[in-house]
């Protein structure tokens, strides 16, 4: 049962924890340096052994501590969720310890959080991008990143060299339809190759 006694016993003697709220599920703050030990305790002693989710929230540029990492656990015994908030200490190079040694499930979640927010997870076995490609320079879920995205060079430099474009070549490039002019393919409209006639100037006989 997740009641006040449970919360009291969980917080007792752990000054790195603080109670946040208990609205949809028990939510506690945890200091980053004790996160690994505490999650181990949760798994082994408190039956919260299913890490269902790990993500981050960007509180915006003005916030004193900009990034917080949010972990959700589920207990098969209590049939209840538990949420941990961890505030990342550094706004410029946010970094917290990785829990993937305790929960293998965290491995991919942490890679995704790194990919989207640029939060570093210390001692992660394989911290590289997972959804975006490896050379991608931005962190798209940060608040300052625009919805429309920022154009970046293609990962395949040879393709970009031939096409002179930042987009993939069309499957029928050079085929029955060609992009007019020397402008970028993303801006030029494709036209039929022999289209020297229109509705107004009729096709010469």
């Amino acid at each position: 049962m997740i009641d006040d006694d449970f919360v009291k016993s969980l917080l007792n003697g752990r000054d790195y924890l603080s109670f946040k709220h208990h609205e949809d599920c028990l939510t506690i703050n945890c200091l980053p340096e004790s996160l690994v030990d505490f999650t181990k305790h949760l798994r082994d002693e408190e039956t919260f052994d299913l890490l269902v989710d790990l993500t981050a929230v960007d509180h915006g540029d003005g916030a004193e501590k900009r990034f917080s990492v949010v972990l959700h656990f589920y207990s098969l015994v209590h049939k209840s969720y538990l949420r941990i908030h961890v505030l990342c200490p550094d706004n410029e190079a946010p970094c917290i310890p990785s829990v993937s040694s305790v929960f293998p499930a965290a491995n991919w979640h942490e890679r995704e959080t790194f990919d989207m927010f640029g939060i570093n997870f210390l001692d992660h076995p394989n911290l590289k991008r997972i959804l975006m490609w490896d050379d991608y320079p931005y962190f798209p879920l940060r608040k300052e990143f625009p919805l429309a995205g920022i154009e970046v060079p293609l990962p395949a430099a040879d393709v970009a060299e031939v096409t002179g474009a930042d987009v993939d070549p069309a499957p029928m490039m050079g085929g029955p339809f060609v992009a007019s002019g020397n402008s970028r393919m993303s801006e030029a409209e494709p036209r039929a190759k022999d289209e020297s006639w229109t509705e107004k100037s009729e096709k010469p006989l």
Partner: protein
Amino acid sequence: MSTTVKEVQIGDVGAQAASHSESAHMSLNVGPSHPTTHGVLRLLMELDGDLITRCEPVLGYLHRGDEKIAENMTYNQFVPYTDRLDYLAPLANNVAYAITVENLAGLKLPERCEAIRVLVCEMARISSHLLGMGVFGMDAGAWTPFMYTFTEREKLYTLFEELTGARFTTSYTRIGGVARDLPDGWLPKVEKFVNELPKAIDEVEKLLTRNRIFLDRTEGIGTISKEDAIAYGLTGPNLRASGVDLDLRKDKPYSGYEKYEFDVPIGSKGDCYDRYLVRIEEVRQSILIVKQVIASMPGGLWYAEDAKKIFAPPKEKIMTSMEELIQNFMIVTEGPQIPPGETYFEAENPKGALGFYLVSKGGGVPYRLKIRAPSFCNLSILEKLVPGHMLSDITVILGSLDFVMGECDR
């Protein structure tokens, strides 16, 4: 005439070449566009002969930035995007998203609305499992069962079309209700369908369940232990096949699931065959739930009446009454007003637990919406699961995990 006989030795050219090669291992790339991968999953593997020694999944080929998009539109506008997560069960995705927002808004829904949602969720589960089972058979080399399951799924899609107006991307659920009431004469058609479905399932079972080839290819292959399944955060049929009794419909009932009687099938070994058996049984249990919902379908409204600033009023009132017109205008332009706070909700979807973590700072647009995709978590075990298997087992393992890349990459 004399003949001369000359002895020549050809030998195995391949083996000769292999003996000259310095490395014993071969790198093999599967996907991203490959029939086995059910979408755009890419696997980088290292082979020792036919034995896989390393497997690294590469994701992101279907990444559309759904979470970023969610931060830039109103709550209602995001409903169609949830269709495109697990696009084999869009009806269930809508429900999971709507319940998340309703939890934060503190909305209580009328019984009829909850029953309709349970009904469409279970129909989505049947549809998703029918496809999953059929394709799994195909991955193991049995093409015929797919024809049976697809025929049944087609009937379901006709029913979906009648209910929602669309076959594939249905967007039926709204925050605070459903888009429209059930059409006249629709429930008897659903009942007829679920009455006939067990016969088709029986036929599929006759083709697969005791099929020698199918057994050889799936039994003892891709075994996931109970501990591993929990450690890697597996959910849904994949977790239950490993013997873990976790079904959110039973453990944390939502939308009135506690009113219906059904069993939760649990596997014993956690291999590919168990995952197939669990799905078959889940379809049968879903049929039972659908029948119970139809038998007990309550009357009343299909939207919450107190959802004034969230759910659009009836169209004829918008056209004739000033108050409703303003209300509709506010919902469309500013979005439904959701109080600040955070909430996490998981629904038992066909692929596993689909979770939404929603952070609101008030107003009509989510501050942060994290989508916890079951396929993403279910695939993370591949790195551990695949090594030690033969290359030909890859198709079976992937098929048995029954994932959707639309949801995995978001």
